[in-house]
C-alpha cells in the first residue's frame, strides 16, 4: 500500500478524487457524468500542450513559446478560412500543425545548432511569434461570423457521444504514451535528459533529439491553435496569453522533473486535469476567477518542492559499509 502511494500518478489521482469529492458534497451536480466529461473536454487543449511541453522538458529544455505558437497557428488557420472559405477544414488543420512544427523547428534549430540556452530562445520567440500575429492580422480580430460553420464545427462534432476535441486529446495521449515508451526516439528523450553525456556514448545525438522535441511541441501547439480558435470562434493577438505557465505547471504538477529525464504521459495528463478541475470548480463554488492565477502559482511551487523531495530519495548509497563505519 505504501509502495503504491509512492507513485506520483496515484497520489495525484487521490488528490483529484478528494478535491472532486469535497466539491460534490456541496454541489452534487458537479460530479454528474456530463459535467465531468465537460471538465475533460475543457482540459483537452491543456493536455495536448502539456504532452508537447513534457517531451521538451524531458530533454532538459523548456518551451515558453507554446502559447504564442498556439495563437499564431490559430490565427493563420482562421485567416486562411476567412480568405478562402472553400478550403477543406482538414487542410487548415494540417496547415496549423505544420506551421507549429516549423515554429518549433526554429526554436529547436537555435538550441541544436547554435547551442543556445532554451529558456532564452523561447523567451525571445514567445514575443516574436506574438508580434508576428499582429503583423499578419494588423491587430484586427477575426470573429465568429467571419469563419465558416464547418471550420467552427469540428471540435464540437460528436462521435459516439464524445466531442472530437476530447477524442483528439485521447488520441494524442495514446500516441505519446506508446511513442515515449516503445519507440527508440521516445526513449532517447529520457536518455538525453537523464544524462546527456551517457546519451552521447550510447550513440544518441543529443542536439538532434532536443530539436525533435521542440518540433513535436510546436506541432502539438499548432493543433491546439486550430482547436482553440475553432472552439472559442474568435482569433486575435492576445489569445492564450500567459497560457504557457499553465502548461509548464501541468507538467511540474504531474511529476515531470524540470531537470529532465523524469516524467510520464499519465502524470502530465493528470497534472493538466488537476488544473482543469480547479478551473472548472472555481465558478461552481463561487470563487472569483481572479483567484485562478494565484492558485496555479501556489500549486506550481508546492509541486516543484514535492518533486524535489521525491527525486532526492532516489539517490543510492553505493558504499554502504563506508557509510556505516564513518
Amino acid at each position, binding site marked *: 500500500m505504501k509502495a503504491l502511494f509512492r507513485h506520483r500518478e496515484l497520489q495525484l489521482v487521490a488528490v483529484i478524487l478528494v478535491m472532486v469529492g469535497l466539491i460534490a458534497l456541496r454541489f452534487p451536480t458537479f460530479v454528474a457524468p456530463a459535467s465531468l466529461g465537460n471538465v475533460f473536454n475543457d482540459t483537452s487543449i491543456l493536455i495536448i500542450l502539456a504532452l508537447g511541453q513534457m517531451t521538451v522538458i524531458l530533454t532538459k529544455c*523548456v518551451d515558453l513559446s507554446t502559447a504564442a505558437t498556439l495563437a499564431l497557428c490559430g490565427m493563420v488557420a482562421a485567416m486562411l478560412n476567412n480568405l478562402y472559405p472553400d478550403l477543406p477544414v482538414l487542410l487548415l488543420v494540417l496547415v496549423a500543425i505544420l506551421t507549429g512544427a516549423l515554429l518549433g523547428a526554429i526554436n529547436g534549430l537555435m538550441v541544436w545548432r547554435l547551442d543556445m*540556452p532554451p529558456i*532564452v530562445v523561447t*523567451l525571445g520567440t514567445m*514575443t516574436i511569434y506574438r*508580434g508576428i500575429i499582429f503583423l499578419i492580422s494588423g491587430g484586427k480580430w477575426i470573429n465568429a461570423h467571419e469563419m465558416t460553420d464547418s471550420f467552427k464545427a469540428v471540435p464540437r462534432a460528436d462521435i459516439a457521444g464524445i466531442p472530437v476535441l476530447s477524442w483528439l486529446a485521447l488520441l494524442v495521449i495514446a500516441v505519446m504514451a506508446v511513442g515515449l515508451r516503445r519507440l527508440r526516439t521516445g526513449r532517447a528523450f529520457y536518455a538525453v535528459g537523464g544524462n546527456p553525456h551517457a546519451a552521447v556514448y550510447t550513440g544518441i545525438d543529443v542536439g538532434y533529439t532536443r530539436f525533435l522535441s521542440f518540433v513535436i511541441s510546436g506541432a502539438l501547439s499548432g493543433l491546439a491553435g486550430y482547436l482553440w480558435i475553432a472552439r472559442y470562434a474568435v482569433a486575435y493577438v492576445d489569445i492564450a496569453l500567459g497560457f504557457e*505557465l499553465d502548461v509548464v505547471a501541468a507538467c511540474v504538477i504531474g511529476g515531470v522533473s524540470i531537470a529532465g529525464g523524469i516524467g510520464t504521459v499519465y502524470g502530465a495528463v493528470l497534472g493538466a486535469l488537476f488544473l482543469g478541475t480547479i478551473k472548472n470548480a472555481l465558478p461552481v463554488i463561487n470563487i472569483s476567477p481572479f483567484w*485562478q492565477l*494565484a492558485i496555479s*502559482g501556489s500549486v506550481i511551487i508546492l509541486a516543484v518542492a514535492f518533486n524535489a523531495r521525491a527525486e532526492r530519495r532516489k539517490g543510492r548509497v553505493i558504499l554502504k559499509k563506508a557509510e556505516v563505519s564513518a
Partner: protein
Amino acid sequence: MSAPSTRGETRLVPDRLQGRAERLLKSWEALLLAVAIAIFALNVWSSPYFLDPWNLSDATFNFTEKGLIAFALALVIVSGEIDLSVAAILALSSTLMGLAMSHGAGTPEIVAIGLLTGLACGAINGMLVSGLGLPSIVVTIGTMSLFRGIAFIILGDKAFTGYPVDFAWFGQGYVWWVFSFELLLFVVAAILFAVLLHATSFGRMVYAIGNNAVAAQFSGIRVERVKFLLFLLSGLMSGLAAVCLTSRLGSTRPSIATGWELEAVTMAVLGGINILGGSGRIGGVVLAALIMGMVTFGFGLLNVPGIVMSIFVGLLLILVIALPKLIGRLGRAKRKA
C-alpha cells in the same frame, strides 16, 4: 606551442598578452558603446524632435525603472540563477501601495510598503531557491503567477487611482533642469551595483558561485546565503521600481508592467551578462539599458506600435546570444581552412 584540449582542438598560446587598450577595444562594452552611438545618430537623423533636451529627458523614463530591475537581475544571473518574477513583484508592490493609499496612508508609508513588499517577495523566492534547493526557473515561474495572482485577487478588474500629490515626485519630479529623480536613482544604483559586483568580496563570491557553485562551497563561501541575499536584492529593486512606476503613472492595475521580466532579462543579456552565470559587468548593463531605451523612444517617435517593438526586443535577445556564437564558429572555420 600548443596544448591539447579535451575537445581535440589545438589551443594556441599567444606570444604576448593583450594590452589594456586592446582588451578594452575588443570588449563587449566597446561594441555596445559603438551600437549606442550609432542608434543615437540614427535617431537624430530620422526624427527632428529627438535632440530636444526635454524629449531626451522623457526618453530616459523608457529605461530607468527597467534598468533598476536589470541591475539586481544581472547579479542573480551572474550567480547562475534567474528571477522571472520581477515584474510580478512590481505589480504586487504597486497593488499593496494602492491598498495602503486607499486606507489613508501617507507618502512615506506608501513608499515603505512598496519597498517592504519587494523585500518580502524576494525573501520568499530566496527561501524557496536557497533554503529548499529548488530550481530558480520553476520557482520564479510559480511565484510570478502567485504574486501577480494576489494582485488580481485584490484588484480584480479595477484600478487604484488618486495617489497623494507629493507621491508623484518619485516618478515625475526633477532634481535639476531636465534631470529627473528617476535618472538620478538610475545613476546612483548603477554606481552602487558596479561597486558591489566589481569591488567587494561579495561581488567576487557572486562570480565564484556562478562559475562553480560546488567549488565555491568548498572554498568557504556560504553559497546559499549569498543566493538568498541576491534574491532579496532583486525583490528590493523591483519594489523600488514599483514606487517609481506607480508614482509616474499615478495609478495601479494588476496588469501593470506585464512582460517586463523579458525586457529586464534582455537588458542584462544584451549587457554581456552570461545567461549561464559566471561573467558579465554592470557597465554593459548600463549601456544596454541606454540602447533599449533609445530604440524604444526612437520607434515611438516614428509611431511604431508597441507590439512591433516587442518583436524587436525578442530578436535582440536572440541575436545577442546567437551572433557571437556564429562569429566564433566562422572564425574557427577560417582558422582550420
